[in-house]
């Protein structure tokens, strides 16, 4: 034992030197596994949001009521005044926005940190081509699909929340804004591509988060892949249906 312990340091270079003691949560976040927990937890929050967002958008299909009011506009109004008057108008909405923004920033930051770490772990690539056995398209393109979704997110907020790139945008007239925006073919195509990327991202992410969190139990292990496929399918089918419905005139806006 003594002999083993007094062995000279390995010739392989340690990729980082042990840091000083940090506050607990920061210390946990500074580790790779800690970052994976953050990826998983923020991922769950964002999956939840994406599902609710898609379900809410299904109201696009309801069309105008007899009085000419679109249910999705009413829904948006309801979201903005949730818990009013106990909570000021937009209160709950902003709380959710701040929460989601934090989740997104942490998710990207952790992903960036882990990517840098992984790049460093193999500075010299394999010189012959690899023959992957089980790594699938989704798992190997996480960084790319993630970046596509992130870029789309910027566009999407500028388009349908802020109206910067949506001429004639009126805050609160959701049906009009959405129909106007997605009637533009390039925008609709970008929307479709981004949502397919999102689906691919979620297919690996939903499965992967169970492993990262260590939620592993023979009782449900076989369900994890199925759940991931279901989440990805529901999101892609739901979200991609909107631009198609608008371009084919199923969903319309009549002032």
């Amino acid at each position: 034992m003594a002999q083993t312990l007094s062995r000279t340091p390995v010739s392989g270079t340690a990729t980082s030197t042990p840091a000083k003691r940090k506050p607990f949560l920061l210390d946990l976040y500074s580790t790779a596994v800690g970052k994976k927990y953050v990826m998983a937890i923020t991922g769950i929050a964002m999956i939840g949001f994406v599902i609710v967002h898609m379900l809410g958008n299904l109201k696009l299909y309801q069309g105008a009521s007899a009085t000419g009011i679109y249910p999705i506009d009413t829904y948006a109004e309801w979201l903005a005044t949730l818990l009013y008057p106990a909570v000021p108008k937009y209160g709950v909405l902003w709380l959710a926005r701040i929460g989601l923004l934090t989740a997104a920033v942490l998710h990207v930051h952790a992903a960036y940190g882990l990517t840098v770490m992984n790049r460093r772990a193999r500075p010299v690539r394999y010189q012959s081509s690899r023959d992957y056995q089980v790594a699938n398209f989704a798992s190997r393109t996480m960084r790319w699909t993630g970046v596509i979704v992130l870029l789309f997110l910027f566009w999407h907020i500028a388009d349908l929340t802020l109206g910067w790139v949506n001429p004639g945008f009126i805050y609160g007239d959701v049906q009009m804004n959405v129909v106007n925006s997605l009637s533009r073919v390039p925008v609709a195509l970008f929307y479709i591509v981004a949502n397919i990327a999102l689906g691919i991202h979620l297919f690996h992410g939903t499965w992967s988060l169970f492993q990262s969190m260590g939620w592993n139990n023979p009782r449900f292990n076989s369900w994890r892949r199925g759940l991931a496929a279901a989440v990805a399918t529901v999101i892609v089918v739901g979200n991609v249906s909107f631009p198609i419905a608008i371009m084919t005139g199923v969903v319309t806006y009549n002032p």
Partner: protein
Amino acid sequence: MSTKLTNLKLKIWRQAGPDDAGRFETYEIPEISDEASFLEMLDILNERLIEQGDEAIVFDHDCREGICGTCSLMINGQAHGPQRASATCQLHMRTFNSGDEIVIEPWRARAFPIIKDLMVDRAAFDRIVESGGFISAPTGGAPDANLTPIPKPVADAAMDAAACIGCGACVAACPNGAASLFTSAKLSHLNRLPQGQAERFRRTEAMVDTMDDYFGSCTNHGECQAACPKEISIDMIALMNSDYRKAKFKNRKNLSRI
């Protein structure tokens, strides 16, 4: 009846030392028995090289029966070659066909620097094990057999983890150069057993932190499990991830009591 394979073309990574750039070199194998093991094929090639006055190809090997974890080799882009659940030393030439081109590369990871040709230094694994891969047991009179009852499923699960031979195929196969499968196997083999409980959380934190110093991080591709000659499951990684969280919280609590 043994048959012969003919006209094999080998592309083998040659590198004079850690700092050499290295390159692929091509060797012809005109004829070889399909009963030869992969490493025997390399032995035969080496004998020929030595006779010609060339330098033999350096590669790691020891037991040649799949239990020591010394052999390595990335064969045609797969760690330990195309045959599942076996190490390179258990691979035979019958897996290949006449006229095949076989590309042989060393493991590649920052923590596994190349010593020469196909041989790498896997001492980073020793650093991980040293940091916690042991139990404290009183020495003295040998305890009675079966003194500590262990439920059969627990013993089996620990045994599955203990099958790890530390060859490094998981790191080699991982697109991220992560050592999660190795570390989690070493952890689960001790963490599941009653004898391993005393140091369970200290061990988990120490070993995972040491792993972080050398290797990449897991993104759950599952390549390690497919490459592992002992078919160790990525379920071990999930166990490690959940134990690490418990360890972080428990160790913090214990530290604050000192």
